[in-house]
């Protein structure tokens, strides 16, 4: 059963076509990665899925319902949750407040408390910094907070936009370990990454996006062996 089904999705910024009709699907429990050079349309894809940019054409089905054209807060409330590019934690708010915002749509206080304990167990460093403003955290800690905040929403599908961007190598490893953990736990993931080798290692399937079109799709191991992918994204 597919959690997400996208058909013919096209997005334009004024005269510029960012997405020229893409099809993609993510099955429940699956980890899918979306590869591509800068400007290929990866972030645009995620922004369109979350309702942050309006699609010019195409359909987006999530958990059995058409969500194309819905506003971002409605899509988030349905469990399609995004960890945006550049993390976008609320820098002036405390770590605890950021986590509370993640569970904004959840009315059940006991459940919110349970999720918060889980997140803090997963990221002990956040537990030590609950009262600090998120802006005072290191880049890696902010990424943990951004992921933890998204997990507070209890996502049915988690979109991760460049989670390793700008992080020190050790921290990159740590973030990928977290993603592997989430995958093990059965969280459905759509991952956009510059770090193609790490992403392909973790993913079940992969799509390659070039100039707003999907040029290659398949099981991650197969995509990793494709000569064009090896040349363009895996450093030869």
């Amino acid at each position, binding site marked *: 059963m597919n959690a997400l089904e996208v058909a013919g999705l096209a997005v334009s910024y004024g005269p510029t076509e960012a997405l020229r009709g893409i099809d993609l699907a993510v099955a429940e429990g699956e980890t899918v990665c979306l590869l591509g050079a800068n400007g290929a349309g990866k972030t645009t894809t995620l922004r369109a899925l979350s309702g942050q940019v309006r699609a010019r054409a195409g359909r987006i089905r999530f958990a059995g319902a058409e969500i194309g054209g819905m506003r971002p807060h409605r899509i*988030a409330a349905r469990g399609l949750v995004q960890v945006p590019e550049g993390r*976008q934690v609320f820098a002036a708010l405390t770590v605890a407040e950021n986590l509370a915002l993640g569970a904004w749509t959840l009315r059940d206080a006991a459940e919110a408390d349970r999720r918060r304990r889980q997140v803090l167990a997963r990221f002990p460093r956040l537990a030590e910094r609950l009262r600090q403003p998120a802006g005072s955290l290191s*880049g890696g800690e*902010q990424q943990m907070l951004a992921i933890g905040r998204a997990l507070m929403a209890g996502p049915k599908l988690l979109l991760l936009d460049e989670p390793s961007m700008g992080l020190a190598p050790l921290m990159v490893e740590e973030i990928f370990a977290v993603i592997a953990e989430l995958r093990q736990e059965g969280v459905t993931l759509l991952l956009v990454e510059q770090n193609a080798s790490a992403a392909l290692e973790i993913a079940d399937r992969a799509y390659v996006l070039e100039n707003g079109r999907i040029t290659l799709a398949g099981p991650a191991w197969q995509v990793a062996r494709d000569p064009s992918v090896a040349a363009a994204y895996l450093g030869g």
Partner: protein
Amino acid sequence: MLAQQLVNGLLLGATYALFALGFTLTFGVLRVINLTYGFYFTAGAFIAWYLTRGGTGLALALPAAAIGSGIIAVILDALLLTRLRRARADELASLMVTLGAVLALYAAMTALLGPDIRRLPQSVLGSGALVLGPVRVTQAQLLILGAVTVLAGGLVWLVRFSRLGLGIRAVAENPDAAGLMGIDAARIAVLVSFLSGALAGAGGVLIGLAFNAIQPYMGEQMMLRGFVVVILGGLGDIFGAMLAGLLLGVVEVLTAAYLASGFKEAVAFALLVLVLWTRPAGLFGRPPPRRA
């Protein structure tokens, strides 16, 4: 003499603070400079004037004026600024649009209602006073003190400590990310417009009480002070606005008492320029938080 002037100054400043709170709230959350804000102040004073003239007591007229101005603010905001927000137009665009709109509103109101100064009925103002040694506090001043304390305190509680306030602060910092949390940023914007309009309207009633002179352009004069207060306090800073409001009130009253009342505005704006030169982030300004 000095003690009395200080009390008068602080109470006048309290109304400035209340007025500036709403203005700084709209700027802090919605990132627009909304010059129609002064009109809500006029609207509040006029609503209270109509109601009290018809025999309604202030206990009812003040909340009614606040709610009425809040609703006007929501409507004007939706008419004037929704499109600009959607297009992510810069602050100058909102400044120009609302400047045009507010001038039209004052002119239309003057044309419809006449430019005369209206006065609240004596029964509303009361004649009693509280005498504490050398200081005399009128009934109207006590009412101002009570209303400002309740409204400003309520706003601070809402923004700092309530769940809704957390949503407001999230939208203020990053409306996009707030949307990803499931927060309806458009609804928060409506709420913030209402709150700021209500604060301005309440401010209009209280200044009406303090000076007992209500006329269409009163919001325009207040808006200039609002600017001074908000910039002194740091744009978007609620505590800064409260302190700067009190400061401006004291400075104006002391200038009028010891220099000449004609110098009031000159001193206020000289203060503004001085602060902008030396502390561009406002008197109590901190550098903005680092963004990730």
